């Protein structure tokens, strides 16, 4: 199939995100409502001016089937709106919004991702993502899977525990400059390596924090984008790919699906100023850097990444927001954002973007 995931006619015209909270005491719709208002204020739009709205969230986090129905209260639906919902990270809602705009008959789309992990016990809940007959009964959770993946990398000689700690040290230090970060610290590799194991070979700092939060962005097409902002961030490509749910059928020392998406988009790993990667566990950064063939000139996760804040279902979309924000601030000209779903990078999405030259 030819690469048709490229687009240069659709731009991010506004971004908004909440901080990552360890436990946000108010409701998920309230998280979303604050962002909706922020975006409407920034662009001067009324709710009715937005042609299409699509959100990503997960019922299971709050333990309430149809939790997403209340989220509609957060982005408004009166008079009735043209709207949809994915039970996925908001980054996949971005994918569908871009697809929808590509049809050419509408001009604006609001995209959201939101999640509150604090009400439950994520390690137990996320084990329910695995195969219900073979894996869920043994409680194969994402942290254990990340540990297996890290071990596979160590066994293959592709990384050392110090490499993992390097990722954490740099990310947590970068997080100090990010007002949305939940966990940030200036900490050396040696100090990190002196910490005890959590899930060997992973230490607690190799894991993301448990977070609540949301992010949102507004897309617009062509001339409409230029009307709404003088700093449009043009989407240059988006693709996402899946891998097997059976860990034994995967080579855990590579991110095969990320590479397929990158190849399909024809990505040049040296062509970006910045890459915001969905590094939920520190070893994942090494796998993603390799799969995307990112050169050392590409700045990875200047926001600190998910290791500084992991609002599940918004974590991926937040990467897009962070990357777009840097372009809007003039600190980057081109950027790559990445989102992931499932354990051990089972599913990956890449979105590339650039500012006005």
């Amino acid at each position, binding site marked *: 199939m030819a690469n048709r995931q490229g687009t240069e006619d659709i731009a991010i015209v506004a971004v908004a995100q909440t901080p990552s909270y360890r436990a946000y005491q108010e409701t998920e719709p309230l998280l979303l409502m604050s962002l909706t208002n922020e975006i409407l204020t920034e662009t001067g739009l009324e709710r009715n001016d937005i042609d299409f709205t699509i959100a990503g969230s997960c019922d299971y986090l709050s333990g309430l*089937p149809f939790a997403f*129905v209340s989220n509609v209260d957060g982005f408004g639906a009166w008079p009735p*709106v043209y709207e949809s919902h994915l*039970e*996925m990270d908001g980054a996949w809602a971005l994918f569908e919004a871009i697809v929808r705009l590509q049809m050419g008959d509408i001009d604006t789309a609001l995209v959201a991702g939101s999640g509150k992990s604090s009400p439950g016990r994520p390690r137990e809940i996320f084990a329910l993502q695995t195969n219900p007959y073979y894996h869920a009964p043994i409680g194969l959770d994402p942290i254990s899977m990340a540990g297996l993946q890290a071990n596979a990398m160590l066994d293959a000689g592709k990384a050392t525990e110090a490499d993992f700690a390097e990722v954490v040290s740099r990310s947590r230090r970068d997080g100090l400059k990010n007002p949305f970060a939940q966990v940030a610290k200036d900490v050396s590799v040696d100090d990190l390596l002196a910490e005890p194991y959590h899930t060997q070979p992973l230490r607690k700092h190799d894991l993301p924090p448990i977070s609540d939060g949301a992010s949102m962005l507004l897309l617009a097409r062509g001339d409409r984008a230029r009307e709404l902002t003088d700093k449009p961030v043009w989407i240059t490509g988006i693709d996402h790919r*899946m891998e097997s749910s059976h860990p034994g059928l995967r080579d855990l020392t590579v991110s095969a699906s990320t590479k397929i998406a990158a190849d399909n988009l024809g990505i040049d790993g040296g062509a970006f100023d910045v890459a915001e990667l969905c590094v939920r566990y520190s070893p994942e950064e090494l796998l993603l850097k390799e799969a995307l063939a990112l050169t050392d000139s590409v700045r990875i996760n200047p926001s600190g990444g998910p290791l500084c804040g992991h609002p599940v279902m918004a974590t991926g979309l937040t990467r897009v927001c962070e990357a777009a924000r840097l372009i809007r601030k003039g600190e980057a000209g081109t950027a790559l954002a990445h989102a992931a779903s499932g354990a051990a990078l089972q599913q990956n999405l890449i979105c590339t973007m650039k500012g006005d030259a």
Partner: protein
Amino acid sequence: MERCAVIGIGQTKYAKRHEITMDGLVRWAAKNALEDAQLDWKDIDAVVIGKAPDALEGVMMPELSLADALGAIGKPIHRVHTAGSVGASTAISAATLIESGMYDTVLTVGYEKQSDGNATWALGGGRSGSQGAGGSFAPWIRKYIMGSGAPPEVGIKVAVKDRLNALRNPNAHLHLYDITEEKVRESPMLWDPLHFLESCPSSDGAAAMVLSNKAGVEKSPNKPAWVIAHAKRTEFTQFPGRDTVKPQAGVDCAEALYKKAGITNPRKQIDCAEIYVPFSWYEPMWLEGHLITPEKEGWKMTLEGATEITGDFPVNMSGGVLSSNPIGASGMIRCLEAANQVRGTAGEYQIDGARVALGHAYGGAANYFAMWIVSSDPDPTF
């Protein structure tokens, strides 16, 4: 914009399917759809799946565990969830993948395996003592009856009609050979005015479609069903002054749909419809709510037999949600059965010469709507 058509249809038998896994159900439907399209897994560019809340089966974000069974490894796959309307929303999402020009051929699958859990518990917000979906809708049905002056037998008549239609459909869950109005009336009252036999069953099953563009249709051996128009609308679940009988989102959705399709007189220009009717009274309610007939006229269409398979506006020829309700698939089944009609592949429940058909689903507190119009003609004129 690229044109999109249904070129393959697949379904499982709907029932309590204790003997097959979720992976097996979705693969079964997908394989049937591929065989109908005479395509193989390698011909599929992307997969879109839909289902109702994960709590129904206790599997979180099931696109992850079902990807292998759906041949989605190395491909894009995403999962839609818009409550009861999800099956139709999923079909529409898949159609946009084609219409945008991004992909040539897309597989879309909706499923539910209600026997793996307790749907009434899950649908009630995961709390004990749930009122169930019927408990939510019954007050609005009573409001419709009071406002429209409909006699009590209207719901009973729908319940019998859809079950008789189901006898023509081998995939239907319920095959109630001895169904009569008397039996419906004598069945237990669940949520006044809804009797047990005026309510949908809890089903397991999957439904699938292969969608493709114009080039795909040209290579396809069987007749296509062209997607002429689709529309979705959502409103708040509750607010003062909300019309719960004829929600504005349902009206807006229908208006947008007919406008796109070029339909000015839906009752005359649409040959037949598969409408999401989980509780009997929703047939007349949606006939009015989606502007097929004026207010207070929907129940007359039902009573006069207009919605029977021999009527002038047949509704739920396949037996509808009242005869099979694998929730996450139910909306897709409506879209797929509309396609079956215009392809001429509806077997014993085929409407002769059906050219334009409506597929419809609603969900949540009747605040989510998703609809599509398909036709045997890529550009039908009315």
